[in-house]
């Protein structure tokens, strides 16, 4: 055990004081999304990050490793993403709030541990900064990890996934992710992308406790104190079953929990014209382009609404269906930087309704507000 010298201890306390003051004073900062995530993890009282470098999330590790030691919190670079995922679960078992950040091929490698977390109901937060795919593809940007993040693994996709569209939302959703992961014990994700990771814009950092946000504490899941059977119930976490019915019973319970959680956590953003001919559905950074396009075309006299799911799993399907079913003539446009991953969920949620669904699909490519404006104008004209 290495003991800290008084000097080191003092320096840490000074730094911790400085960082805490930034959060307590609701300081607005101009920073990258990766930096925002590290601050949010600090604000959410995360204990430990396990990670393996991959662009475009590297700076999350960098900033966390810079901020965390002042508060006695830790960082470990593991030998790969498989290990990072499982060490996270180990940390969660002994009562630490653990997280990781990854992208692309790293997201694939983490699916095994995420599936295990899903089966054993172990909490954890994964930050995904989507890059181009399949495989190594680009280090830049995409929305192609939507399906992998929401429903990857050999299970039922019992996961909570936030898709953010601004640094403010990234900060707040990351804090919510930690809280809800430890509250509901389903694997929880913040689905960002390379653009959000690398872009700089203002964000107001804050201490959630001073805003009366409850911070859910982590407790040991295994290795609890007391003698099993005598002083407390034994902890029996399983990811292996001998009988089909046994697995089915357990999963039925988990699925019921997941449906209950849905009612409490589901979030979305909707707006635009009160009465509308068109509805744009987009998530994440493309949602942001869509909103900006909707504002522009509505100023030019079109009648367009937007719907941006913030939790993309569980999906706010009822809210979307309500908007669409009220207007039988409403035409829908789904835009995403992937080839139909959000689109298939929208279609599933709107099954049985006769509204036309158009799509603008650009796998691995950014979508600007101007592009969406152009399509809306074209679709709007056909309508009239």
């Amino acid at each position, binding site marked *: 055990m290495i003991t800290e010298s008084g000097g080191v201890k003092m320096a840490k306390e000074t730094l911790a004081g400085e960082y805490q003051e930034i959060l307590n004073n609701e300081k607005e900062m101009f920073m990258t999304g990766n930096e925002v995530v590290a601050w949010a993890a600090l604000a959410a009282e995360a204990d430990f990050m396990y990670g393996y470098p991959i662009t475009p999330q590297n700076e999350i590790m960098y900033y966390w490793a810079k901020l965390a030691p002042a508060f006695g919190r830790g960082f470990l670079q593991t030998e790969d993403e498989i290990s990072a995922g499982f060490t996270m679960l180990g940390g969660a078992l002994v009562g630490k709030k653990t997280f990781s950040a990854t992208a692309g091929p790293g997201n694939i490698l983490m699916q095994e541990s995420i599936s295990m977390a899903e089966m054993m109901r172990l909490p954890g937060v994964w930050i995904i900064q989507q890059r181009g795919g399949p495989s190594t593809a680009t280090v830049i940007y995409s929305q192609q990890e939507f399906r992998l993040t929401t429903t990857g693994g050999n299970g039922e996709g019992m996961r909570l996934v936030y898709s953010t569209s601004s640094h403010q939302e990234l900060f707040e959703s990351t804090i919510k992710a930690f809280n809800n992961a430890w509250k509901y014990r389903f694997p929880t994700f913040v689905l960002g992308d390379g*653009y959000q990771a*690398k872009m700089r814009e203002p964000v107001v950092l804050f201490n959630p406790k001073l805003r009366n946000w409850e911070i859910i504490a982590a407790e040991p899941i295994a290795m609890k104190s007391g003698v099993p059977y005598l002083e407390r119930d034994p902890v029996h976490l399983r990811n292996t079953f001998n009988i089909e019915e046994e697995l089915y019973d357990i999963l039925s319970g988990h699925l019921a929990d997941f449906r209950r959680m849905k009612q409490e956590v589901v979030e979305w953003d909707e707006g635009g014209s009160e009465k509308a001919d068109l509805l744009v559905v987009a998530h994440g950074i493309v949602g942001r382009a869509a909103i900006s396009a909707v504002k522009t075309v509505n100023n030019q006299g079109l009648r367009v609404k937007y719907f941006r799911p913030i939790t993309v799993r569980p999906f706010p399907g009822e809210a979307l269906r309500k908007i669409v079913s009220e207007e039988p003539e409403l035409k829908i446009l789904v835009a995403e930087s992937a080839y139909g991953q959000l689109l298939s969920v929208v279609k599933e949620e709107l099954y049985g309704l006769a509204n036309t669904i158009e799509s603008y699909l650009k796998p691995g490519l950014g979508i*600007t507000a101007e592009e969406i404006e152009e399509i809306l104008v074209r679709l709007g004209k056909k309508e009239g």
Partner: protein
Amino acid sequence: MLDNGLVKIIIAGEGGQGVQTIGELLAEAAYISGKKALYIPNFGVEQRGGVSIAFVQISKGEIGAPKFQKADLLVVLSQRSVERTRDYLKQGTIYLYDESNIQAPLIDDQAVGVHGYDTVAPEAFAKMVGTKEGEAITPPKQKDLTILGIPAAKVAKEQLTPRVFNIIILGALVSVSKVLEAEKIKEALERKLGEKFKLHPELRKLNFEALESGIHMGLDALTKEE
């Protein structure tokens, strides 16, 4: 330029010209001035052809998507960047370019590891900034553009140091964009390079001189254009 509430700026140049530093400082200065600002680098493992692009938006109101299709102001610092940025032109784009007959430093495709996004302080690129004579940039011939040439690389080489080339460009951007005060750029420089300035006060002087020099170049170019 802020009349319509939003200015879209693209800065394009070779990997070592400090393009991302210009974008970052510009956005930071806008943010310090109380405006909304968004900056995103065009980053990759290695950009094809080594052209580095910075996207900056400065606005009174909320800013939408981080990237955009047409630029109000396009800053072009090498011949390859002229080609690479052609699609971002629209009617009325202000086209600011370096007119010196000094070769921009080309990073060839072998230069793996020069990431567009982590372009740091200009002095880190001392050896990469152009000093050799060569062909000047040929701007596009379109009549619907406002084309402004400034002798940034030449002045940097002859009167200051090639290292502050990008700070001269930043100065010219202050004059041309008319959305920022020079003082705010200085503040952004202090935030970014404050530690280095403390150790080497002559760097502050050099950078501020370069900024002033760029501001004058920008004003001269505007006068000539009129």
